[in-house]
């Protein structure tokens, strides 16, 4: 039985980054991907934060096909018939390479081509069906009739991770630990995007929404500008969808979002060219899988490494970082010629020293905070209402701004003890 060093299941950002960090190290590495090419099954919102991974990626992202550099951040609270938006830009945001919008089909494909040039085998169009066991160790994978034996199997197979499940690392999937993202690509001329979003060429905008976009359910909407398209969509907690009475058909939400005045103008004349959906792990620290076993490591979404921070979802830089750290562990294991969990456990140890587990741990209470329904229904309704009252000049005498503020806040219950107490929990996050 011939045994290679590493087989990576899944050519997403996690798996490809792991392979990249293993390239040119005299190891035999194979990436197996079920899609026609890496990227062809992958969906993201939009934006990759670069600073957390800058040091560890080395030259990996040199020449990457970024869509636009985010220089404008917008957050909107959508009431039923009004909205309130914060629009932020700054010199640092424009000058530093903080975050970029990307499209995964071209991005992942580009990275896989870079890998192939470095001598890594990337095998597309193969679905891995199972892991191979020898006593309590994993010694390879099975794809149809093919078997590949390897010292280490890396489960990089994304949020549904059947491999993590077969390897007995992944906990059973419960609705409260996942959100579903539903997205459309709408093509628009590059110059139209520059004008509508008030940005220069190759500069872009990240716009996030809460409130009416999910009809008050846990989740939000997003709009990211690409070179000549926008990525628009919603992410919504699965449990929130199931608890809703009467039930709402999820696919209708994106349509009512796009019908909003605030959005309609931005995408007017655009042509829809793709419709996609994908799950997002949202269990945070508590929802993580076991991270290693004898002969196996689990990385990226498969391990549950994603963080819903309310205003943004971070998953891609976690995927990349965990892939690279897994590679470091594998190199160590190869050096020691020990692929048992003794050495594999270094992976978790190293993750704890980096932002991956540090941030997941630091923000472990964010979910409890976000479970406050008011954040998605009451506040997105009442803030715009407050603004409306202040802006409004009607017949008769204009009331003083201070008393308008005070009275609206009191009458809408913004100052109720329960609400303030829930908001106070913000100190935990």
């Amino acid at each position, binding site marked *: 039985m011939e045994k290679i060093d590493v087989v990576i299941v899944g050519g997403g950002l996690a798996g490809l980054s792991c392979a990249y960090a293993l390239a040119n190290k005299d190891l035999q590495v194979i990436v197996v991907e*079920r899609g026609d090419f890496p990227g062809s099954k992958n969906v993201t919102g939009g934006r990759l934060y670069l600073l957390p991974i800058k040091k560890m990626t080395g030259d990996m992202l040199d020449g990457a096909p970024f869509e636009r550099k985010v220089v404008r951040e917008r957050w909107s609270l959508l009431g039923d018939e009004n909205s309130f938006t914060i629009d932020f830009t700054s010199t640092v945001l424009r000058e530093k390479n903080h975050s970029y919008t990307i499209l995964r089909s071209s991005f992942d494909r580009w990275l896989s081509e870079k890998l192939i040039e470095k001598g890594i085998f990337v095998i597309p169009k193969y679905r891995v069906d199972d892991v191979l066991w020898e006593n309590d160790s994993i010694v390879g994978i099975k794809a149809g009739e093919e078997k590949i034996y390897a010292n280490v199997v890396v489960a990089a197979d994304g949020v549904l991770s*059947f491999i993590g499940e077969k390897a007995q690392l992944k906990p059973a999937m419960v609705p409260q630990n*996942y959100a579903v993202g539903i997205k459309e690509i709408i093509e628009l001329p590059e110059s139209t995007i520059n004008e509508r979003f008030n940005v220069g060429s190759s500069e872009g905008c990240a716009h996030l929404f809460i409130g009416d976009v999910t009809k008050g359910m846990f989740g939000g909407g997003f709009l990211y500008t690409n070179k000549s398209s926008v990525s628009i969509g919603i992410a919504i907690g699965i449990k929130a969808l*199931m608890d809703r009475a009467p039930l709402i058909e999820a*696919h209708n939400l994106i349509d009512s979002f796009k019908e909003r005045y605030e959005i309609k103008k931005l995408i007017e004349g655009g042509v829809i060219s793709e*419709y996609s*959906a994908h*799950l997002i792990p949202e269990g945070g620290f508590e929802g993580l899988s076991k991270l290693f076993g004898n002969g196996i490591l689990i990385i990226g979404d498969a391990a549950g490494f994603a963080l819903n921070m309310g205003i943004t979802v971070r998953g891609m830089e976690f995927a990349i970082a965990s892939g690279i750290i897994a590679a470091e562990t594998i190199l160590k294991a190869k050096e020691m010629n020990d692929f048992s969990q003794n050495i594999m456990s270094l992976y978790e140890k190293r993750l704890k020293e980096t932002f991956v587990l540090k941030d997941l741990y630091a923000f472990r209470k964010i979910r409890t905070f976000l479970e406050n329904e008011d954040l998605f229904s009451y506040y997105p309704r009442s803030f715009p209402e407050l603004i409306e009252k202040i802006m409004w000049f009607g017949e008769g005498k204009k009331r003083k701004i201070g008393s308008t503020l005070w009275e609206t806040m009191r009458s809408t219950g913004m100052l109720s003890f329960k609400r303030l107490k829930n908001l106070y929990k913000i100190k935990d996050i």
Partner: protein
Amino acid sequence: MKVEEKLALNVFKNDKESHIKIHQDICRKKCLTRFCISVCPAHLYSFNEETKEIVVEFAGCLECGTCKVVCKEGAIEWIYPKGEYGVQYRFG
């Protein structure tokens, strides 16, 4: 635009065999909510009043897995389509 029209914009390579199997007996016996119908972003699930069966048009599947997660009764047997098949995103 209707969801069926949106799906028509995607590239699908369809297998003859469905990657989603439904155990109708479980649906019949245990399920009052039929979450599968409301959550599917591609709106592929429906209830056939004549046969009293849950039907899924697997050919338009976006492979998100939402239906698998919401069916707590375990009536949905869901695997990825075989390599080479299913949705192929051009943007993603």
